[in-house]
C-alpha cells in the first residue's frame, strides 16, 4: 500500500484494469484485495468458475474475503446494481465494500450494451457510498468495442500498481447518449396498442390494457409482467402529476419482450438519471421512478428537442 492511495479509501472508487495475461490479472487483483483487507473492508472477488479458482489459489482465504460466481451475483444489470445499492444503504460499511471481477458480458453481443451502461451507472448509483471496484477486462476474451466503452465508464485506470485519473471518463448522464452506450430506441414497428391517459381514473384502463396484451402475446414471466405493469403505472402517474396531459402510452409485444413508451407534453424530467439513486426518506416523485427502474430491464428517459418527455421501458 502506498500513501497516494490513502486519500481515496473512505469514499468511492471505480477502477479499470485492462490486461492480456493471467499474471497481470492475478497481480492487479491481489494488490486491490490486499488494500481492501488492510483498510478493514469486506472484499468480494467474483468471476466465472475457472477464474475464481485461479484467483482463489493465488489469494487464499481471509475472514473478510468472499468469492462468488457471476451466475449467482450478476443475473441482470439492473438487479445487480440495485442489489449492491440496497446492501450499501442498509449496512454500516464504514470501511467499505471492495468488489473485483469482470462484468459477465457473455457471448450474446446484443446483451453487451446493457452491461456497459451498468458500468457507467455504477458511478451514479454507488457513488455516494464507500464502494470500491476494480473491474478487470481481458482483451484476449472481450470484443474491442466492450473494452473501448469501458474506457469511458471508469473514472480511474489501474496498471496493477497505481491508479491514475482516466481522461477518457464520461459522466454517466453524458455517456448514456454516447453511441458506445447503445441505449435502446423505441421500436420502429407500429405499436400493438395505444392509449391516452388524461386523468388518474384512466390509469386503471392503461394497466389492464398492458396486462391483457401481455397475457395474450408474450412469453414474459407472469411475475415480471405484474412488476412491469406497476412500473408503467408509476411512470404514467408521474406524467400526470409533473408532466402535461395528455400522457400517451404505446405498447409493443413480441414473444420475448414487452416494450412501453410513455410520452407527455411537459417540460420533461430534468435529470434523465432520476430514480437510479435511492431516494432515502425524500417524498418527491423520484421514489416512483426509483421503484419503476427496479421492476424493468430498461427505463430510458429522454427529453426530446420538440419539448416533450418520453420514457421507454422494457421487460423480458
Amino acid at each position, binding site marked *: 500500500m502506498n500513501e497516494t492511495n490513502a486519500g481515496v479509501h473512505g469514499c468511492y472508487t471505480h477502477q479499470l484494469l485492462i490486461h492480456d495475461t493471467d499474471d497481470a490479472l492475478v497481480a492487479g487483483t491481489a494488490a486491490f484485495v490486499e488494500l481492501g483487507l488492510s483498510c478493514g473492508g469486506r472484499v468480494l472477488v467474483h468471476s466465472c468458475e475457472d477464474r475464481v479458482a485461479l484467483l482463489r489459489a493465488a489469494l487464499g482465504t481471509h475472514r473478510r474475503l468472499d468469492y462468488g460466481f457471476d451466475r449467482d451475483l450478476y443475473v441482470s444489470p439492473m438487479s445487480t446494481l440495485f442489489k449492491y445499492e440496497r446492501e450499501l444503504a442498509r449496512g454500516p460499511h464504514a470501511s467499505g465494500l471492495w468488489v473485483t471481477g469482470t462484468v459477465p458480458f457473455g457471448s450474446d453481443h446484443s446483451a453487451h450494451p446493457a452491461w456497459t451502461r451498468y458500468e457507467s451507472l455504477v458511478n451514479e448509483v454507488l457513488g455516494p457510498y464507500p464502494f470500491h471496484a476494480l473491474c478487470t477486462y481481458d482483451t484476449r476474451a472481450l470484443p474491442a468495442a466492450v473494452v473501448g466503452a469501458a474506457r469511458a465508464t471508469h473514472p480511474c485506470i489501474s496498471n496493477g500498481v497505481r491508479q491514475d485519473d482516466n481522461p477518457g471518463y464520461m459522466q454517466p448522464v453524458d455517456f448514456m447518449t454516447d453511441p458506445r452506450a447503445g441505449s435502446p430506441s423505441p421500436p420502429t414497428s407500429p405499436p400493438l396498442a395505444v392509449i391516452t391517459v388524461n386523468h388518474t381514473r384512466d390509469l386503471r384502463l392503461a394497466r389492464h390494457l398492458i396486462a391483457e396484451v401481455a397475457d395474450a402475446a408474450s412469453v414474459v414471466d407472469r411475475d415480471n409482467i*405484474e*412488476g412491469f405493469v*406497476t412500473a408503467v*403505472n408509476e411512470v404514467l*402517474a408521474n406524467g400526470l402529476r409533473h408532466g402535461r396531459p395528455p400522457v400517451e402510452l404505446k405498447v409493443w409485444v413480441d414473444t420475448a419482450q414487452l416494450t412501453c413508451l410513455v410520452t407527455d407534453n411537459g417540460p420533461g424530467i430534468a435529470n434523465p438519471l432520476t430514480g437510479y439513486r435511492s431516494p432515502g426518506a425524500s417524498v418527491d416523485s423520484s421514489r416512483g421512478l426509483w421503484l419503476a427502474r427496479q421492476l424493468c430491464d430498461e427505463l430510458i428517459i429522454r427529453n426530446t428537442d420538440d419539448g416533450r418527455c418520453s420514457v421507454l421501458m422494457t421487460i423480458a
Partner: protein
Amino acid sequence: MRASGRRELWDGHVLLMYADEQQRRTGVTAWVRRGLETDAKIVYVESPDEQASRSLIRVLLDEHIDVTSAVSRRQLEIVDPDVGLGPAWQAQLVDDGLAAGYSSVRLGGAADTSCTVMSPSDHADAERAADELCLARPAAILCQYATSLPASMLQRACSMHTAGIRGTTLQIFPIHDGVALAGEIDLSDLHTLRSALGAFCARTTEAHPKFVIDLAELNFLDVAGARVLVSDTSPIRDQGVVVQVRGAGPMIHRLLRQLGVDRIDGFVLEDPS
C-alpha cells in the same frame, strides 16, 4: 392480476367517497346499474334545486344508461328531501317496495348535504338507523361524501358505514381489528384511502394494540398508496399500536418490501398468502 374485487359492496349501507365530480358520477352510476340489474326499487333523494349537471337523471343519461323506462314504471324514483328522510320513512319505503314485488329497495342521495343541515346527533341517528335497516331488511343505502369535507365529519361517516366505503376502484370495509382493502389503489383513490384509513385508525383504542390491514382482496397498489399505508398509520404506531399487513399477494408484497415497509417501526408485513 387477480380476480376483481367485491362487486356486492355496492349493496348494503355504502359510503361513496369522491375527490371530484367524475368520481362521484362513476360511483353513483355503478350503484344504480347494480339496482337495475338486480330488479331493485331505487329511490334517490335529490333537491329540486340541484344543479342540472349533477342531477341523477342527467348523470345516468350522460353515462349512457337508459333510465326512461325505469322512471316511467316507477322502478327509479326521485324524491324531494322535504319528505323527512327519517327512520320511519325509510322503513315504510322498504315495505312498499317489497310489497310492489321488487327484490330489494335501494335508497341513495348526497349525504354530505344532509350532514351539513342536520345536527351531528340527528345525523348520527339517521346513519345508525340506515345501518340497522340494511342489516335487517333487503335494503341498500348509498351515502356520498366529498373527501374535501372536514376530517372529523369523514371520520364519523366512515365509522357509521358497516358495509364499507367505495372509491373509484378501491373498496374499504371494516373488519374485526382493522380494515380490509379491496380492488385497486392508484392515484384516483388516494384521497379516499387517506380519509377512510385515517377514520378507521382513529377508532383504534388502547384495548386494541393491533391494527390489521387486510390486503387479500387488493389487486393493485401503487407507490403513493403504499406510502399512505405508512404515513397515515404513523399516529397510531406512535402510540404503540402494531400495524399488521396481511394477505398481500406476491406483487404487492414485493412492492412493500422494496419500499422498505417491512423495516419500519411498528409495522409487520406478513409473508404472501
